[in-house]
């Protein structure tokens, strides 16, 4: 909260920059805030209505307005209970690949961006390599799916390479998790490199140049100077990548494939939750949606600024 107060101060400072039409009437200002609040409602209502619905009984769903809170008799935690039971193992599986894949891709992105920004080699070649890497951000993943399936099923049979792991009693479905980590790292390199690249470009290179003149190797410069200064960008990249990887459905669908698998990630289970012969159980779906979104919501609420920076780059 105190944080918020600080930020509003920043906002008023912007006003004093005198860019805005200062002498405007309060009526105009009031309508401005009116529009902004309406827009905020537009963005919040789907989420709010999902939240209240997740606490409703079957009859309350039909009888109360979709955005109204459940009355005393219409309130139930049963759907959350069911959703958590169904999704908890998926949550664990998702963490199992999202966390390592996020950390590795951030590190790799930082190293790649360093090699393509700070060392002294021909800028036009650097830009070419970068262009080839950055183009990878925009590839529709559909264009690589069939080869990806071929690659993991026929060419690199991780399941056999890791047979010693399954011998320990871990279900061999978990090979999908390992595949997801490697796949997400590979496809995460372009965006992570781009984010770090924009950051390193603005770094003052005096310190690095003098270190280089003193005979420090590139590795030393990275470890002693660049890496310690990369903290803020690591926050941005880790948050952005975690959200992306956690939220992705397509790769989990292709690499893990069934929601009944022991290694099924949370998005995969959620996509099929609450559909049955009797029709759709909306309260259950909403509870599941919220539960699955908890990690990304928490990250967003705690680190919203870093997230905004990540998406803006």
């Amino acid at each position, binding site marked *: 909260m105190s944080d*918020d107060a600080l*930020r*509003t101060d920043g*906002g008023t400072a912007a006003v004093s*920059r005198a*860019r*805005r*039409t200062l002498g405007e009437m309060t009526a105009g200002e009031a309508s*401005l*805030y009116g529009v*902004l609040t309406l*827009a905020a409602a537009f*963005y*919040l*209502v*789907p989420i709010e*209505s999902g939240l209240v619905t997740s606490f409703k009984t079957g009859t309350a769903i039909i009888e109360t*307005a*979709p955005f109204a809170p459940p009355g005393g008799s219409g309130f139930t935690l049963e759907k959350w209970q069911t959703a958590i039971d169904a999704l908890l193992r998926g949550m664990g599986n998702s963490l199992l690949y999202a966390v390592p894949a996020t950390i590795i891709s951030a590190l*790799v992105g930082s190293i*790649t961006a360093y*090699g*393509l920004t700070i*060392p002294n*080699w021909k800028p036009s*070649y650097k*830009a070419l390599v*970068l*262009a080839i890497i950055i*183009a990878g*951000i925009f*590839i*529709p993943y*559909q*264009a*690589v*799916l*069939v*080869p*990806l399936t*071929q690659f993991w*099923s*026929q060419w690199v049979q991780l399941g056999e390479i890791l047979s010693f792991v399954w011998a320990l009693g871990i279900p061999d479905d978990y090979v999908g998790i390992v595949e997801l980590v490697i796949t997400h790292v*590979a*496809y995460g390199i*372009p965006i992570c490199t781009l984010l770090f690249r924009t950051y390193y470009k603005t770094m003052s290179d005096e310190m690095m140049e003098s270190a280089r003149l003193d005979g420090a190797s*590139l590795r030393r410069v990275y470890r002693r100077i660049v890496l310690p200064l990369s903290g803020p960008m690591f926050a941005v990249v880790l948050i952005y990548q975690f959200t992306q990887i956690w939220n992705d*459905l397509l790769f989990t*669908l*292709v690499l893990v494939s069934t929601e009944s698998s022991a290694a099924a990630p949370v998005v995969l289970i959620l996509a*099929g939750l609450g559909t049955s012969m009797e029709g759709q159980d*909306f309260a259950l*779906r*909403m509870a599941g949606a*919220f539960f*699955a979104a908890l990690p990304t*919501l928490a*990250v967003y609420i705690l680190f919203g600024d870093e997230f905004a920076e990540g*998406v*803006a780059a």
Partner: protein
Amino acid sequence: MFNFYRRLHRAISPSAGDEDARTDGGVVSEDAPAASDPGADSGVVDRIGSEIDRRFGSDFVESSIFWLPPFLLMALFVYGAVIWNLFISLTDYQGFANAPDYSNLDFGMYTRALADSGFIDAAINTLILLIAFTVGTLTIGLILAILIDRGIRFENTFRTIYLLPMSLSFVVTAQFWLWIYNFNNGIANGVIGVFGLGPVSWLGNQAIVLYAVIFALMWQFSGYAMVVYLAGLRAIPDEHYEAAKVDGASTLKMYWRVIIPQLKGATISAAVVLMVFGMKAFDFLYSLVGGYRPPNGADILATKMVREAYANLEWAYGAAIAIVLFGMALAVIGPYLVYEYRRDNL
């Protein structure tokens, strides 16, 4: 042998004469080992290494350990896979066979696509989705950015709220919108009911469903467009606003004539990213129905590709559709990357 190499190199490389002009020590170390110890293996390595240095820059070889392995991994998974996909699309691969038969390549899958009305519909829907979604999202984002940029209080709170949906998974937002578009109890029918309209079967009516989906996607990503535009607006010097004011331009005119034209860069980069998000609408449509077949009228290439390959096991056909999708993406991002490269923005 070495002299021969050097002479050959001098002959083919027009810039070889510039060696002496270099200020750093590279030239000295380059000649020294070759002169003192010609023919030794280490000399050859050094020689080639420094030759590369001269061509690419002094840190090229040493820095390659940083970027080359990730570059190769990325290239294998992105470019290798796309090329591989192209080959698969030329085979007749289908069913439970382990691998395609590459001995007989033809364009059969592409002619099949052109004769498939489902493919044509999906292609048209994809175009509609990309264009309507991108234009709509940019417009909303721009309006929000301009409003927020007017020095309001609680700027951060508003911004956080507008961007919130973007942190959610398509799988999650699809659940929300499924509920909103519910025929009997959904908010959408409630809202238009106030005006005496509806109820409308948002997801059941073929003519409407695609736009209902586009609206949901706009809800999710207009906050992103706002953030990009906000950054663009902040980069415009205050004097431009003041000059327009002095000229007596109305606020609306000022934005239209002076400010918006300066947001070209922001618009282009946001549009490219939004199109990429639009192509990922697969996750949303899949979650909406919990399966490979989206509601009738909302099939796009992304969903059709996955359905053909993973539900119908028509691998080659799926690969061909993927190539078409890739071509569409390339038509957007190719010019964009050239544009950024020319502007030295990479």
